[in-house]
């Protein structure tokens, strides 16, 4: 039995971005951050060493979730909030498939919050791209679970009174084994973390800070604008000190149990005092603090924040199945029907 199993690296034809462009017109608003993410993704796919028929793109509902229609792979545009469950079914069913899931902050953190935390907990080997524009785009501008407190939106005319989720904190709390963050204005970084996510065995979550030009323009401009991005972005690289700033003169230090942003060269701080990023430590303390850093006190951490090893759900399941096939006396349904207590008449 078993489903179509296809080899990964057997004589792969050379692929290009063009191989992954569908014939459908891309209908996002001009200037929407989604365009850059799509284009980056289409560049990444031919570089993964995966046959194009083995890629499946799954999504929920939202502007972001239109994504699968624009990528020429097997694709499934699901229902609101359920992309994680849909992708789980695809991947468990056929672990040879290379599954990417595209979702929004509403799709995965509101209606789909339950599935989102559970896919992370199960560590199913899918790659999640969560476009965080801090607003509901498709339904035209209501606040989302990541909208900052006080923000006036169509459904919060007096400013929201809710406490927003921090995506990384939620994901790490749910035992996510891989969390990275990127911004839609930096395709190079998106491409880099997509490659990292693809390599990671287990659920990889990339939060992409994405601008909605229509309903929350400049939502991330403190992080992405030319003037401030130097001071407000920290590019994490595994094994390297956490240095940031236009002049690379700032860094992150551990003071007691807290992180602190410091000037290198001031008050006796030297480069040696700066924390070195270790994305692989299982202890989530520093990763959580990094994920939560935000201006004005801190820069926003970008790149791979956490990437730790654990077994994947589907690998474990396959190995149990294999063992059972070997040791069980029930090899086919006839065996099952005739097992246990039976009698002849």
């Amino acid at each position, binding site marked *: 039995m078993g489903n179509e199993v296809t080899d990964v690296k057997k004589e792969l034809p050379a692929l290009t971005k063009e191989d992954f462009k569908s014939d459908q017109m891309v209908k996002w608003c001009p200037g929407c951050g989604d365009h850059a993410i799509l284009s980056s993704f289409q560049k990444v796919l031919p570089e993964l060493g995966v046959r194009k028929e083995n890629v499946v793109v799954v999504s929920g509902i939202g502007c972001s979730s239109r994504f699968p229609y624009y990528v020429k792979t*097997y694709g499934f*545009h699901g229902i609101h909030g359920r992309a994680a469950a849909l992708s789980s079914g695809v991947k468990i069913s056929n672990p040879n498939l290379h599954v990417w899931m595209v979702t929004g902050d509403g799709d995965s953190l509101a209606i789909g919050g339950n599935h989102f935390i559970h896919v992370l907990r199960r560590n199913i080997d899918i790659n999640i791209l969560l476009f965080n524009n801090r607003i509901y785009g498709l339904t035209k501008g209501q606040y989302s679970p990541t909208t900052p407190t006080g923000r006036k939106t169509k459904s919060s005319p007096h400013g929201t009174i809710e406490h927003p989720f921090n995506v990384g904190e939620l994901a790490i709390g749910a035992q996510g084994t891989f969390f990275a963050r990127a911004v839609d204005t930096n395709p190079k970084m998106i491409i880099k973390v997509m490659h990292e996510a693809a390599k990671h065995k287990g659920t990889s979550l990339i939060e992409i800070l994405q601008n909605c030009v229509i309903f929350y323009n400049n939502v991330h401009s403190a992080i992405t604008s030319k003037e401030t991005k130097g001071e407000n972005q920290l590019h994490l690289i595994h094994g390297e000190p956490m240095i940031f700033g236009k002049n690379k003169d700032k860094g992150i230090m551990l003071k007691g149990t807290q992180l602190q942003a410091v000037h290198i060269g001031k008050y006796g701080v030297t480069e040696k005092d700066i924390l070195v990023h270790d994305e692989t430590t299982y202890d989530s303390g520093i990763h959580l603090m990094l994920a939560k850093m935000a201006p004005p006190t801190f820069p926003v951490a970008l790149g791979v924040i956490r990437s730790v090893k654990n077994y994947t759900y589907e690998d474990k399941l396959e190995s149990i199945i294999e063992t059972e096939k070997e040791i069980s006396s029930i090899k086919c349904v006839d065996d099952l029907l005739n097992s246990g207590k039976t009698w002849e008449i």
Partner: protein
Amino acid sequence: MTTKTQKVVELEDVVVRFAGDSGDGMQLTGSLFSDAAAIAGNDFATFPDYPSEIRAPQGTIAGVSGFQIHFGHKEIYTPGDTADVLFAMNPAPLKKNLMWVKPGGTIIVDTDTFTDKSLTKAEYTSNPLEDGSLKEYNVIKAPISTLTKKSVEDLGLDNKMILKSRNMFALGIMFFLFNRKFKTADEFFEQKFKSDPLLIESNKKILRAGYNFAETIEALNSITYIVEPAELKKGKYRNITGNVATAWGLLAAAERSGRQLFLGSYPITPASEILQELSKHKSLGAKVLQAEDEIAGIVSAIGASFAGSFAVTSTSGPGLSLKCEAIGLAVMTELPIVIVDVQRAGPSTGMPTKSEQSDLLQALFGRNGEAQVIVIAASSSSNCFYYAYEAAKLAMEHMTPVILLTDGCLANGSEVFRIPKVSELPSIKPPIVKANDTDYRPYKRDPEKLSRSWAIPGTLGLRHRIGGLEKENIFGNVSHDPENHQLMCEYRAEKVRRVANYIKPQDVIGPESGDLLVVSWGSTYGVMIEAVKEMQEQGKKVSLAHFHNINPLPKNTAEIFSKYKKIIVPELNLGQFVLYLRMYFQQFKFEQYNKIQGLPFMVKELVDKFNHLLDEK
């Protein structure tokens, strides 16, 4: 002890009910008694009656656990209305079950348990064994606790252990009464207590003590009963519950179709055993995801279906409500999936352990948009196997969701099941697209069935996108074109309608025309057939049309209806199937008879109702 001459009375069928505290081992007693009936060649059906609380206080009515078995020389369709013999281990089970004993029936009690304290717990104000309230019955008073202790006093077991084995003394009495052999029970003890020879010995001794006791007591007048073997078709048999039969039918369908089985499911009474059963069979390649909720259960299954698995989700009414939106997604994406709904009493949480037929309208219509699905219903614990198989075949060959309705009665009840060979089941041929098929279009349809085909991720040359947005005919791109939407809605509906060309015509039990047609569906089959046969024996012109295919209905449905002067639709709800029939067949007058108490119909009430209807001018 003088050996009395024994009188053996032959019976066509008997209903026995064992009832005790939830710790008294009534389910085990019942199943050992069933095994003995099986070996004796009887046909039988059983039904467990668990308390809804896991461990309700000992000795209270809420904590009573029961097991009913109906066995016979004749064909057995139901676990039986009322019991010929009630075995009550304590006062509370007597109080709770007396209403289910036939007038004049036999009641066996353990007199040692009728203490003031336990009588009070059971809410008795006086001792029923002494106040004459049981004078209509043949009451056998046995000091079972004392006798059980005595029978193994030489083995040095502790008191608590011995009292736990009281049920085996009870079983011994029943074995004597019905001329059963010790063999199956002995084998069970030897298997179960392999590591503890003392327990094997004590259980065997207690069982025999009960048997010997029954032989000597006056009240039985040395009468024993014999139920001759049933005339069952030659073959190999086993006992099976509806939930296990459902799970196995699904496994058989996976094997026959060459697809891997995927189940996404969330535990819920009374459907959980399907999830538990399928998760056992990894050696058959079945993959089971216990999802975080019912929505993830079905949505993961839809993902698995897209990826080429034979996908299933199992649930009960409240879970089906949660799955509605996702069923619509499967309708839109035209992917095969079987949704098993083991119905229970609703609305809301309702009465989880009680059975009802009240999800029919939800199954038929509970979705947004025009979203027809195939709906079929099993009618006995053992035929859950065949209807699960049929659900799978229809889903995969017609590329559509199928809802399979069973219910708590079928799910937990058990029955004799003639073991089929998988190779003899009808073939299942899903329309899977071959690699690099240049004619493949995601929404191109089979000209006869109108099903689209199954292009499985990983297959070369078939990359395509599907989803919940309306699809353009043939090509499957997103489309908001008005005419296309109408066309696609009609295609999806017509695809389900055409399933009628592939299912068996409806059959009728009894004369092809007559005064009254009883129309029923689902788990009421057993009582309906017993009621209808009883009336036919009285010379009444009554027939039964019991439906398994609900949507679409068999093509000959109207023709059947036209042959009878009156039609009645009895259901365990407020009238759901009848409403559906009235919608399609406005030319006929449908009478209805409804019961919604969490209890099955009784043959007697049906016969009364039908006779009443026949008498009406």
